[in-house]
């Protein structure tokens, strides 16, 4: 193959080659990914959506929350959580693997790939995973009657985007990890769990005590959930707040990627 041609091609499409690798690796876990993508929503919707939902709905005299059934209220939050979890899996584990476990990033960096291309490639692959997970989740939500067909494309976009925003932040955070001493346990317990519980997921954020509401405000999950609820069942969200939600997600994505690129470069080009 012509050396100049392939050099140019490699320099232009490097991020896609990294994504190709990540997707190939993902495909080794395809069975697990698919069963989680469908199994997770089914379990949540049965247990919380229908189980807790019947309790909530009967106690509110059939008014549910914000005038819709509990399962409809809950659906956008569960969807965004799933997308966030998926994107997180595809940004944090591969990063630790690449820098610590088998140092594959150093191998990539020995080729013409740059630190920036590696970051972009991981993000592309994470996006694919968040996309697939959101799609599977939506199908289940629809089957449970929790979303309307008309709202599905928008919900899909918002959830995938929320996944990417949080994924970028996780990528940035993981790129600083030097040793794998319980990093994931800390993230799961002190970041993901509180975010999941205190982002207006199971009840409106304003019903939480004031001193806990800040968690929602710094949580990509709340911003995307509130945004998605407005789309899904017409929750009244003021225009300025919709802008804040979108801006928060975009800024998280951009800032996460900038930090990750910088840190990747400084670790790879010592």
């Amino acid at each position: 193959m012509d050396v100049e041609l392939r050099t140019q091609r490699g320099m232009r499409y490097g991020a896609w080659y990294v994504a190709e690798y990540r997707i190939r690796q993902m495909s080794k876990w395809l069975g697990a990914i698919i069963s989680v993508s469908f199994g997770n929503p089914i379990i949540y919707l049965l247990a919380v959506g229908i189980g807790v939902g019947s309790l909530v709905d009967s106690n509110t005299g059939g008014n549910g929350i914000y005038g819709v059934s509990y399962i409809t209220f809950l659906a956008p939050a569960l969807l965004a959580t799933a997308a966030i979890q998926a994107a997180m899996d595809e940004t944090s584990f591969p990063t630790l693997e690449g820098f610590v476990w088998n140092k594959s990033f150093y191998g990539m960096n020995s080729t013409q790939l740059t630190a920036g291309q590696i970051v972009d490639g991981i993000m592309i692959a994470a996006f694919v995973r968040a996309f697939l997970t959101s799609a599977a989740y939506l199908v289940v939500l629809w089957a449970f009657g929790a979303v309307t067909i008309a709202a599905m494309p928008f919900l899909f976009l918002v959830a995938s985007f929320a996944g990417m925003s949080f994924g970028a932040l996780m990528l940035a955070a993981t790129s600083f990890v030097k040793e794998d001493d319980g990093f994931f346990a800390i993230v799961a317990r002190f970041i993901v769990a509180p975010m999941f519980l205190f982002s207006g997921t199971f009840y409106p954020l304003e019903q939480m005590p004031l001193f806990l509401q800040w968690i929602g405000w710094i949580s990509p999950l709340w911003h995307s959930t509130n945004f998605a609820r407005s789309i899904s069942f017409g929750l009244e969200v003021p225009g300025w707040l919709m802008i804040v939600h979108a801006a928060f997600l975009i800024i998280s994505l951009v800032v996460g990627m900038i930090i990750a690129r910088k840190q990747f470069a400084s670790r790879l080009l010592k």
Partner: protein
Amino acid sequence: MPKSQNAKTMIVAKGLRKVYGDFVAVDGIDFEVKQGEAFGLLGPNGAGKSTTMRMIASTSMRSGGELEILGKDPNKNGPEIRAHLGVVPQQDNLDRELKVWENLYIYGRYFGLSRKFMKDKIEELIEFAQLGEKRNAKTEELSGGMKRRLTIARALVNEPDILMLDEPTTGLDPQARHVLWDRLFRLKEQGVTLVITTHYMDEAEQLCDRLVVMDKGRIMAEGSPADLIKQYSSKEVLEVRFGSSANKNVAKQIEGLGDRTEVLPDRILIYSENGEKILERIVKLGLHPLTSLVRRSSLEDVFLRLTGRTLVD
């Protein structure tokens, strides 16, 4: 291989330096590597070999001096240079979950190689690495030697102008080392420029046309293995052991017998043109070593002479 004067210069380093904070890893070194040459960096752990390698591999920015790889500056043109290099790192970084052929495929893709090109290339490289039977095995199932061969094959995927090997046989058993050396010889015969770091003198003697001896970030000597031995050592070495407590005292008695004497904790080395003769004279003095051995001088002796230390501590 072509080592004529007009062979293309692949690497030029002048006053090359690398500093990490207060620590000077590479302290102003000069060398050149010509096309088709097998060039070695020999030295103990921490001599600055791997740092030098990383700078040549264009994955580490130099702190000072000049460095030119294939006519380009790695601080500015890293990716362009790396497109023409093959790198075998000290520690294998193969993907454990991917199959043998997939590891080659993915790596080829990083270089922008087409799927069609890779189809034939993969088979060629699997044959070169003698991994035909393991083609579809996951790399975690391979032995250390096989992993090493796969890593070398992977580094050849882009048909590099320079192949860089950092401690290629460290951690391998003797048989696996010989298989690997055989593969590297073949590459040498094909005219691939090799840059090798090692702390094994036998490896340097086997593989390198020319080498530099490094210690504490500096180059101590440069030349072909034979030249270095000639210049810094004698033809033969007599090794005698009198027991660790007696060695030091005996050394004083036999000091003038050879050209030079080195006292190591476990043995005394006496350098001369004829080891057997020296041994006879030692016995005549009424001294009876527990063991004695006459051998040819090696790069190990060159290193000992230059630094006062052995290569492998």
